[in-house]
């Protein structure tokens, strides 16, 4: 059995696994019956359908030819990690240290994900965007977003 399409193979496994997970989870809720469907009714049905579909995708990935084996290609770990890491850091820092810390950190880490790192441009962006965000969201729209770290605020 040769994998004819890498992408579809992985997709099939993904759908199968997720469908199974949801279906198993659904059995912990009461199923009810046709006349009085319970909370587990719809998720179990859907989970089973997804498993079946996932199996079909898996099957086609092993049998139907695709050009070049439909490779998944390289995973862009650097941008993935840096961008999402930046966002996660932001999420962590905002309530703890306020806007003035969270936004510059976000911008700085995110700009490391680009090809070239220009520290001057990044610095200017940090300042401009932090100020602009404060202006629009805190002053302009009067939203309660922590701006300064508790020690200073």
């Amino acid at each position, binding site marked *: 059995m040769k994998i004819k399409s890498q992408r579809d193979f992985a997709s099939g496994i993904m759908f199968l696994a997720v469908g199974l997970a949801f279906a198993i989870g659904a059995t912990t809720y009461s199923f009810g*019956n046709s006349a009085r*469907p319970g909370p587990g009714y719809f998720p179990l049905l859907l989970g089973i359908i997804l498993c079946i579909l996932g199996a079909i995708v898996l099957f086609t990935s092993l049998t139907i030819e695709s050009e070049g084996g439909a490779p998944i290609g390289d995973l862009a770990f650097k941008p993935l990690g840096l961008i999402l890491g930046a*966002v996660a850091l932001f999420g962590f820092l905002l309530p703890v240290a306020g806007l003035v810390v969270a936004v510059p950190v976000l911008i700085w880490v995110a700009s490391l994900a680009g090809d070239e790192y220009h520290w001057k441009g990044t610095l200017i962006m940090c300042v401009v965007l932090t100020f602009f965000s404060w202006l629009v*969201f805190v002053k302009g729209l009067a939203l309660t977003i922590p701006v300064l770290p508790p020690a200073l605020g």
Partner: protein
Amino acid sequence: MDLLHNLSIGFGVALNFTNLAYAFFGCVLGTLIGVLPGLGPVATIAMLLPSIYSLDATPALIMLAGIYYGAQYGGSTTAILINVPGESSSVVTAIDGYQMARQGRAGAALATAGLGSFFAGCVGTIILAAFAPPLTELAFKFGPAEYFSLMVLGLIGAVVLASGSLIKAISMIILGLLIGQINTDVISGTPRYSFDIPELTDGINFVAIAMGVFGFGEIIANLGRPPEHREVFTKAVGGMLPSKEEFKKAWPAVVRGTGLGSILGILPGGGALLASFAAYTLEKKIASDSSRFGKGDIRGVAGPESANNAGAQTSFIPMLTLGIPPNAVMALMVGAMTIKGIQPGPQVMTSNPDLFWGLIASMWIGNLMLVILNLPLIGIWIKLLTVPYRYLYPAILTFCCIGLFTLNNNNFDVFSGVLFGVIGYVFYKLHCEPAPLLLGFILGPMMEENLRRALLLSRGDWSTFLTRPLSAGLLAGAVAMIVVVTLPAIKSKREEAFQEVD
């Protein structure tokens, strides 16, 4: 004639200075909210509650209506410019609109969206004014079984939105439906799949998914490509208006979208939302040359935008006559009406004609204001797109992150965004289309509710979906669509239309 008389009452009310001022304020605020991705209705409502309760009913409702439309216009703007659909109804606009922006046609896309929406708004207002009573009758015929079948039809139609394998698209829809199951069951009150995390009992926020999959995923994918292949916005940004040729192609789509949207919007609940998906499907099916759909076909922007605006107009009918709001802003309108002692119901038209017709007239005025507000802004938006990507993407990230936080003043939504960013990248790598997943996610809870209600009403008899004529017709349409798409002749045309451009 009754219609003219009613409209004249309406304009008489709407054109006084206070109401105009409130309409304008609502439109501006709405546009701002729509454009800033993530800033949701919850934040708006929190800001406005104090002022609403002190206002009279008519100005309050006029302002809320302005916010509602403004948000629609603004949401289309971000969908086109940065591929982040701010509102659920702009998910479809993002598909072709963003591609047009990438090719330097952002101005044309934005202008088409604006003008198409305005046209639809005008027509929608007239339909609303002329046909409100008989349309309410039609809405009454739709029971839970019909709703369920309509949504099945809508979801099947959504696979046309996907450019890859049909079966993977359907799987994505089911996946979306499943993710929508992470919430508290409406009928029994049981929290499902919440793993004891309190934030999950209300379900994952749509914006977190949209931002993660479309916004973050796009940025990561873009940065991950080698520099020569990177698809940033072209420097050669076109003019602000659509070309003659584009205009010729677009205006029939606008008319079709308006018609479809007007009909679908009457259905209480998600009618206006379904309208944009249905319009896209329609355009693609009847297009003589459908190869450009998904790559920047102006009809893919014109049709859905007109449909969702027409639908937004006509969705006021069930809102006012049946008291069923399709979203949070409208829910506030129903609340405001109740507080002012106006009971939403069929008699609102006759007992409070000033309010009803004044609201309708001011909707048209609001649409006009929005077009006037937004068209000049297009020039500014286009300028923004020429900024080098390395400055653009951190700015986009900042607004997305703050937006996510302000959804619930909780960083849980930011982390959800991160999770969906990873998931979005996985989908991109595996060539699984995210748009059907979003549709499934949005429609999931409604579908389930209607399914269960239909079964409850029929005492567990599944054939109720086939024995009720309207429902049977809708399901037959869904089956027909699957058949048409899988027929060999259409299949090869479809595959040829979706040559993977990677």
